[in-house]
């Protein structure tokens, strides 16, 4: 069952070391005949201080990979480390504590507790742990994300973009070793999506955080330092300093495979992204044809 992945990123010596690591990570659903391998002996290293994007078509296992790396899901085989801590085999209580103290999370939607206001949501992981937040850092995060005048608002009183900014602030607030963002722009319009991506970029560049983002949007992936491509439970490719159209081209190859496989149009995920991809490519490529007309003129400074 352990077919080695054709390409994988082993031991990147550069950057500040390894934030998370997986070896032979396998996740199977069901048993016997109906077993489905969501992850098939994946080896991966997440470099510290970098912005890593995980891409792949629907069902490629990208969310499962994130869940396993973040200690949200159990693994069927293999090992996962966060820093020097092996998290495979940890009990629920230890995993919970690990997530609380060392990992930050952003999800696509429903990121905030509706009964708590923005400030309470931001400090929630630390409140749960019974720790005092580092006020200076917190102020810096809040100001960076421009949430100063929104702190007393309940989630229902915030726009979708503001809600994701609060989620981003929460993920940053405890200065975790690793931030996992699962389709953080999936539910946002392009402008708000760009904003959030900009903040994640800033968190890596200015604040020295490590971010892993799962997305199926090439435009979003283009903000990262490194894109890992997942297909059928394996890491099939990676791309450094990606551009939206390069990512898109790479993704199209999945589609081709899919089309030949299914003889159909493929999954909706594999279809060219619309609406959420607002990034302006650095060079004028035909990829721009897929861009949303409304947001074509929005630019964001990169690096």
């Amino acid at each position: 069952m352990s077919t080695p992945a054709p390409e994988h990123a082993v031991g990147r010596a550069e950057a500040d070391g390894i934030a998370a690591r997986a070896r032979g990570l396998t996740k199977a659903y069901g048993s016997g005949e109906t077993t489905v391998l969501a992850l098939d002996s994946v080896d991966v290293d997440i470099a510290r201080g970098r912005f890593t994007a995980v891409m792949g078509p629907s069902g490629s296992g990208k969310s499962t990979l994130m869940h396993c790396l973040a200690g949200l899901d159990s693994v069927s085989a293999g090992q996962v480390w966060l820093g020097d801590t092996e998290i495979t085999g940890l009990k629920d209580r230890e995993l919970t504590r690990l997530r609380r103290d060392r990992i930050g999370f952003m999800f696509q939607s429903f990121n905030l507790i509706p009964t708590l206001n923005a400030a309470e949501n931001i400090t929630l992981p630390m409140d749960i742990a019974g720790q005092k937040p580092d006020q200076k850092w917190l102020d810096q995060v809040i100001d960076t994300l421009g949430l100063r005048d929104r702190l007393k608002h309940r989630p229902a009183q915030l726009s979708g973009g503001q809600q994701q900014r609060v989620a981003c602030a929460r993920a940053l607030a405890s200065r975790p070793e690793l931030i996992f963002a699962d389709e953080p722009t999936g539910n946002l319009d392009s402008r708000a999506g760009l904003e959030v991506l900009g903040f994640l970029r800033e968190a890596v560049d200015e604040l020295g955080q490590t971010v892993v983002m799962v997305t199926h949007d090439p435009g979003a992936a283009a903000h990262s330092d490194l894109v890992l491509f997942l297909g059928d439970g394996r890491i099939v490719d990676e791309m450094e300093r990606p551009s939206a159209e390069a990512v898109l081209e790479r993704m199209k190859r999945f589609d081709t495979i899919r089309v030949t496989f299914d003889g159909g149009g493929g999954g909706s995920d594999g279809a060219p992204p619309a609406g959420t991809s607002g990034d302006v490519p650095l060079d004028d490529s035909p990829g721009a044809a897929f861009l949303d007309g409304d947001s074509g003129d929005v630019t964001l400074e990169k690096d």
Partner: protein
Amino acid sequence: MLKATLRSFLAHKGRLLLSALAVVLSVAFVAGSLIFSDTVTRTFDRLFASTSADVTVEPKNDLSSQIPTGATQTVPASLAERLAKVDGVAATHVDAAVENATVVDSEHESVGPTTGAPTIVTNWEVTERSPVKLTSGHEPRGDGEALLDADTAKKKHVRIDDTLTVQAQPGPFKVRIVGIATFTTTNPGAALIFLDTPTAQTRLLGSPAAATSISVDAAPGVGDAQLKQRIAAELGTKTYDLKTAEEQAKSAAAQLGGFLDVIKYVMLGFAGIAVLVGVFLIVNTFSMLIAQRTRELGLLRALGADRRQVRRSVLTEALLLGLVGSTLGLAAGIGLALGLIKLMTAFGMNLKSTEMVIGWATPVSAYVVGVGVTFVAAYLPARRAAGVSPMAALADAEVAGVGRPLRVRAVVGTVVGAFGAAALAGCAASSKTSTAASLLGLGVVLTLIATVIAGPLLVRPVIRVLGGAFPAVFGSVGRMSQRNALRNPRRTGATAAALMVGLALVGGMSVASASMTKSFDHQIDKTLGADFVIQNSNFVPFPQDLTDKVRGTQGAGLVVRQRFTPVAVRLPDGKRIETTAAAYDPRLDDVAHVTYAQGNTAAALGDGHIAMDVKFARKHHVRLGSVIPVEFPAKRKTELTVAALTDQDAAEGFGMQGGLYFGFDTIERYLPGGQDSALYVNAASGTGADQLRARLEKTLDPYPQAKVLDQADYKKLIHDQIAVLLYLVYALLGLAIVIAVLGVVNTLALSVVERTREIGLLRAIGLARRQLRRMIRLESVVIAVFGAVLGLALGIVWGVCIQQVLALQGMKSLAIPWTTIIAVVVGSAVVGIVAALLPALRASRMNVLAAIAHE
């Protein structure tokens, strides 16, 4: 549409489980009480019908008293011979049966039932109607021999040849048990001792020429009614009561019926509570299910289902729930009745469970209650469901309708509450018992309705306060639990209402009983001056012999006797009032503090004199010196002069209206053969109280029924009587709690399902399972305590008003049992914790990924 309804019902069956349980509980209580009382009634109807003589001749019972007097009314035994000559009479029998005797064994232990059922000493007269037959030994022959019933013999370990002492009114005597008689019918729980007829007449009634009744057997072909007419022609109807077998059975059943009615009404009270609380549970469940299914219902509407169809769909679900609940409830009711019958057997009443009666009314009531309640409770949610717009299917609305404003509730609640408050204020201000009581009832109902309606409005302010310390104490877990409780005030209010209703009743009744206790204590402090009171624990009079022995006890100084009699007085305002009067020995002032508006004790107890309460006197235009015609039992009549008016603020309850009393000579003259109900004893000079007590207790050793009580004991005796009321309160409390727990569990379980994603998010960002459980527990506690606080507040208001009504009866002290109330609040927090157990477990077991995964 029906198919969709059935699918939905089955899909939600887990969530409907607790509502079904509420229906089951209420139906079970209704069915159980009906089956039980039908069974008991049928059993006793049969017993009395089979044991009643064709015609019974009894002394005319024109005056009756709630307080036992100990006197036994008799007819001349010679009537038997006279009646035997009447045409159509086959045979006559002399009956000599008394219930005023105590029977003790050689160790001075009573062999009578401890359940309140009587000890009956009677003559052994074998007829085909006898409920017993001789099963061992021989029948009693002459003085000193007796039979005992088998159940009592077995229970009290009495064997043939054992000696028992019968403390009868004329005096105690010893009997040897020579045989055992066994019930051939249902044993109603009494102890039976049989003597031969002359012994019974002499020893029990004091004269061989006396009888308590004459049983007449009709000759073949003569009807009971016909025979009764002939006897009436012979004897007249003025002196004697004549009853046919049917009438006799009816009156006997009616006497027993009082006791059975109590059980029946208590059970129906429970059923009422269960129904009331069940309604809240069902309303809440359906509201929540509909809120959760808003999109689904919107889709149905968008697909073309009209409002009526949606409403009918929800009501059909309710109907199914009601049917299932009623059926299970009926079964549970049969079980409950079976349990009650077993319990009665343990109390000595031998009911045969095989003869359980399930009348047609039982299933009909069960289904009417079960289906009706569910249907009514689901009606509002169903209307709301029908109001869901087709747009709801498309909208990405948050589940659970939080939004709708509470304005209507505020207005209706305030108006109803204002009327209720006005009624209660009127009750407190009223000076007439009947007006006050009806205003009280109205006020209680209105304020209850108002609180239920306005409950959701009170959620915010009250829970802000109750949960105010949560964020500080429990951090963000506390903060979230407090806010979750505030999230949907309507839901929190309805959930807490279940507990509120029960605890309001408990609060009201506990204030009332505490006030009664305090009032009695106060009165005892104020009036009781004797060193000791000698009294039966159940206030039943004791034999003359006991009085003599107490008088003869060394160190006993003054002994003042108290005796009661039923009387009827004709008052100057033309009213005839039947009440109970007391009689005392002359030196009453030395053992009791009586305050007089006019006159004094010496005058009150003087020959031909009577005293009464000054307020009663004023009301009926009685003045000092008025001459009052007084009727005693057995048609004895006299006129007494009012010689003193008391100003006691005494309780008028317990059938003692008017507070009438007179000297001992009067009662001995007009109620011969009465027994003393209490003795007030003072120590002779030179004897210490403890010394006297020890001696009195030694004297009373052969009389297990009588107790020596000092002031503290006397208070305790009264407290114990009131405690019976409290036990009922606690039983109600228990039931209210059970159902309220169901309600809280129900709400929390549904809330947990609704908040799946939120819980998943919390778990993902690091909330430990333990913390999650604590969060749900705290929410549960705050809801439960909210219900308790609201209920108790309402209950205390009711209690204060009840006390105002009692004050008109002379119970002037108000006491609020704070310890009980605080205990109930603390208890409600425990209830909250218990209710949260399952929902919290369920939430903490929830799969984190399933909760956060999108789409």
